[in-house]
């Protein structure tokens, strides 16, 4: 039953642009929403399935963006190949980072991942000769080239990013229903018990981290190509990327396939709206609202909208009030 909903959603998403101006603002917002939904889905693999709250996914996102763009600028390599290179770099980083963080969880794990992405951000900001420093990098202009992953209209980006979202979601689903998924669940619930009944918890965590990192890096490349420009704060930023990836998923329901999608399609359009209304007056007002909303939601229901809905409908079904 759920698969039909999924297929219908993809169908709707594929057909939607027919009604939209390909150069307009709405389609841009939708594309961004899908990008962050995919980002959340990649985070979901580690944060949702294994309950390892990572506050450092920006590290992989930024590594992807910088790797592919630097390869493009310096060697003219196509962003599609750059994407693969970026994924490889991020995978290596995740692999190496796994070891010191293996026994960490909760606050400590969040802290370690946060520190990692912050360090990368600082390095990117200060290593001007290589990364362009705080000014950032621009993707060299070559309009309407599939090979160069650059288009004048938003429409091709929309479909490429839709495909990415579907890909990441499929990977999430495959993992969850596979032996790896069961083992991750065991690790999430009780690491000791999992070990004792034969789950190699170290290996399982590493595999999940590497897959999540590779997918995140891929999205970083897509972001760079879509936005044409980025700076260290945009791709390595705690709030811009890491927190957003986590919140989008948690809000919609961590561990579920629909969670990041629901969360992203709620948060991103609202944010964009707030940005256009508020931020023209004072920088930071929309972000402030975001922070306040975050706190508000934490205080009301830390487990996310989906849980609220599920429990709400369950209560309705049992007959009577919400």
């Amino acid at each position, binding site marked *: 039953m759920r698969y039909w909903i999924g297929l219908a959603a993809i169908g709707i998403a594929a057909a939607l642009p027919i009604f939209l101006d390909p150069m307009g603002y709405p389609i841009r917002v939708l594309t961004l929403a899908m990008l962050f939904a995919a980002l959340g889905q990649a985070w979901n693999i580690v944060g949702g399935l294994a309950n390892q709250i990572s506050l450092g996914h920006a590290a992989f996102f930024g590594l992807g963006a910088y790797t592919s763009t630097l390869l493009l600028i310096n060697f003219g390599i196509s962003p599609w190949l750059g994407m693969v290179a970026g994924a490889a770099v991020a995978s290596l980083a995740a692999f190496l980072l796994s070891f010191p963080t*293996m026994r960490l969880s909760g*606050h400590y794990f*969040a*802290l370690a991942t946060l*520190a*990692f992405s912050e360090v990368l951000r600082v*390095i990117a900001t*200060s290593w001007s000769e290589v990364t362009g420093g705080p000014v950032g990098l621009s993707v060299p202009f070559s309009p309407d080239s599939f090979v160069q992953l650059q288009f004048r209209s938003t429409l091709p980006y929309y479909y490429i990013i839709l495909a990415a979202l579907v890909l990441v979601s499929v990977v999430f689903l495959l993992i969850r229903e596979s032996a790896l998924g069961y083992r991750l669940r065991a690790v999430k619930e009780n690491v000791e018990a999992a070990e004792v009944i034969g789950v190699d918890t170290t290996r399982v965590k590493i595999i999940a981290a590497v897959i999540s990192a590779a997918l995140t890096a891929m999205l970083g490349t897509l972001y760079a190509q879509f936005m044409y420009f980025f700076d260290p704060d945009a791709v390595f930023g705690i709030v811009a990327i890491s927190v957003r990836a986590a919140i989008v998923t948690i809000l919609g329901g961590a561990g579920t396939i629909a969670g990041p999608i629901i969360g992203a399609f709620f948060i991103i359009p609202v944010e964009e709206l707030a940005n256009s209304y508020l931020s023209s007056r004072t920088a*930071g007002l929309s972000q*402030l609202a975001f922070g306040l909303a975050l706190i508000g939601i934490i205080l009301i229901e830390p487990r996310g909208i989906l849980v609220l809905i599920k429990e709400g409908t369950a209560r309705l079904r049992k007959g009577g009030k919400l």
Partner: protein
Amino acid sequence: MAFLQAVIDGLLIGGVYAVISSGLTLVFGVMGIINFAQAEFLMLGMFVAYFAWQLLGLDPLIGSLISFAVIFCLGVLVQMTLIQRVLRAPPVAQIFATVGLLIVIENAALIAFGSDFRSVSTSYQTSALRVGPIFISVPYLAAFLMSLLSGCALWLFMNKSWYGRAMRATAQDPMAANLMGIDADRMRQIAFGLGVGLTAFGGAVILPYFTVHPTVGQQFVVLMFTVVVLGGLGSVAGAVVGGLTVGVIQSVSTLFFPIQLQNLILFIVFITMLALRPTGLIGAAR
């Protein structure tokens, strides 16, 4: 000789790092949560001292006391309205409560103060004392001495005053503390206020040689957390050791490595400590 100079400079700045980080470690020690917004209170402390200087003509070293008082009160308020509510929630909620706080404070500051960079000018800003071949920068020294004073004050408070001991009791066993007549909630409020107040104090004290800006907190995030992990989360003595160590490492590494690598070195220290000895050099396991 350059090495000795670097070590001295490192110790001086390390003293301040110690004070800044002791606030973070105190909050963890008493409440078991990592306050991801801690660096934002540093920024607020800097602003309070800045305005004290600009509007009242007070030297930041005096202003730092005002910073402490103001941010202490703010901290108590935050604890009562937000932190208290998530103490029994799963780590996910706790983490994002303080992350949300980070976002709110930073952007509120951006709106209230604008994004200009500001700095104070004091009479002694560029002076330095000469001790043999070593130069000791006066603002560094002043900051260090203030940190030393506040460190002693903190020690006296934690060990000799009733409140301090009650706080430590609450940290170790809240239920037992309650049974002894200690209001654990009140203790936690004071602890949080104290924690962010100390960090704010540290920020004010370094105002003479720092520019203040709503995003200045970001510069201290990795640093603060490195100090605290090095010294052991929850141990104030550890924050002192960690602060001095980080100060020296940072200062000495400027001699050998470009600035980009310095941060990497700091991070390697941080992650190694977290992996091998999460309880830190001094800290007690929690």
